């Protein structure tokens, strides 16, 4: 009973807001530490790749950005499903807080991919299944943001945006498995649960960078969620208390 009560308590913005405010500096610190360790391993210690030379080092940001672009979308779709099923206030705010960072991750995935593709394949872009589905993911993020921004009533915006997110979620497995399902120019996955095609330092460098991107995403999304909370709950007592001058 007690646990249940606590869980509901955290779903209320009045509890979530100060908690997120305390958590953000820790996520920033973790992101910086993981990033420094990952860059040290990836850029300074890891050996060269026998096929791609030093150009392969783009992997240390390309793969984390690509993973996050897909993960963030899945989390947003999860919040959308919760919001549509239970009509919870927090879920729509969380989805909206994550969207711009997801879009930036999708952009970074495409940008670093283009800079990697040029020297390795001889082209910045091809209409290959992996690249095209990732571009669609970027458009889904932009579409979600445009749609929710265009609807004035936040609850209706959440509902419409949530539907878009749930329909678009079909794209994520398409991105992920595209290199298996189709014959693509993009190389297969570098990391497998059973065997990995990478050297150990490279693998750890990449995983540390992925953790850095994760912590970064959580920190920025929490910052954005707090702003959205204040805005949406501006008529409640807790926001008024929060914004009141501490001197009085």
């Amino acid at each position, binding site marked *: 009973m007690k646990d249940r009560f606590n869980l509901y308590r955290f779903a209320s913005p009045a509890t979530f807001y100060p908690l997120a405010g305390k958590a953000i500096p820790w996520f*920033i610190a973790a992101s910086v530490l993981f990033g420094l360790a990952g860059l040290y391993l990836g850029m300074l*210690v890891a050996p060269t790749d026998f096929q791609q030379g030093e150009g392969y080092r783009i992997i240390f940001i390309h793969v984390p950005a690509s993973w996050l672009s897909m993960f963030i979308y899945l989390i947003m779709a999860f919040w959308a499903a919760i919001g549509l099923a239970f009509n919870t206030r927090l879920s729509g705010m969380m989805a909206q807080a994550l969207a711009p*960072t997801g879009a930036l991750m999708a952009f970074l995935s495409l940008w670093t991919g283009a800079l990697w593709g040029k020297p390795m394949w001889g082209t910045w872009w091809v209409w290959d299944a992996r690249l095209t589905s990732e571009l669609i993911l970027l458009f889904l993020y932009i579409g979600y943001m445009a749609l929710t921004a265009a609807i004035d009533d936040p609850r209706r915006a959440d509902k419409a945006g949530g539907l878009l997110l749930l329909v678009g979620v079909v794209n994520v497995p398409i991105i992920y498995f595209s290199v298996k399902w189709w014959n693509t120019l993009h190389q297969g996955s570098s990391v497998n649960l059973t065997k990995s095609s990478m050297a150990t330092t490279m693998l750890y460098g990449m995983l540390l960078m992925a953790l850095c991107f994760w912590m970064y995403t959580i920190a920025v999304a929490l*910052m954005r969620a707090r702003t959205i909370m*204040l805005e949406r709950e501006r008529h409640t007592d807790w926001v008024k208390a929060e914004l009141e001058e501490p001197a009085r």
Partner: protein
Amino acid sequence: MIYWNSFSDFLAMGGYGLYVWGSFGVTALVMAVEPIVVARNQKATKSRLKRQIRAESRSTE
């Protein structure tokens, strides 16, 4: 431990410098600018809401 022989080797990235640093540079820029924009938005929203709340409490008095 360190793989590189010199700093210029590190910068050159075996001839891939433009591509590697172009990727890392833009990523660093994005991850530096986004938190600043978000923090600014929060500050602006807070001061706007403060003004609104003050105006509302004055009008009800």
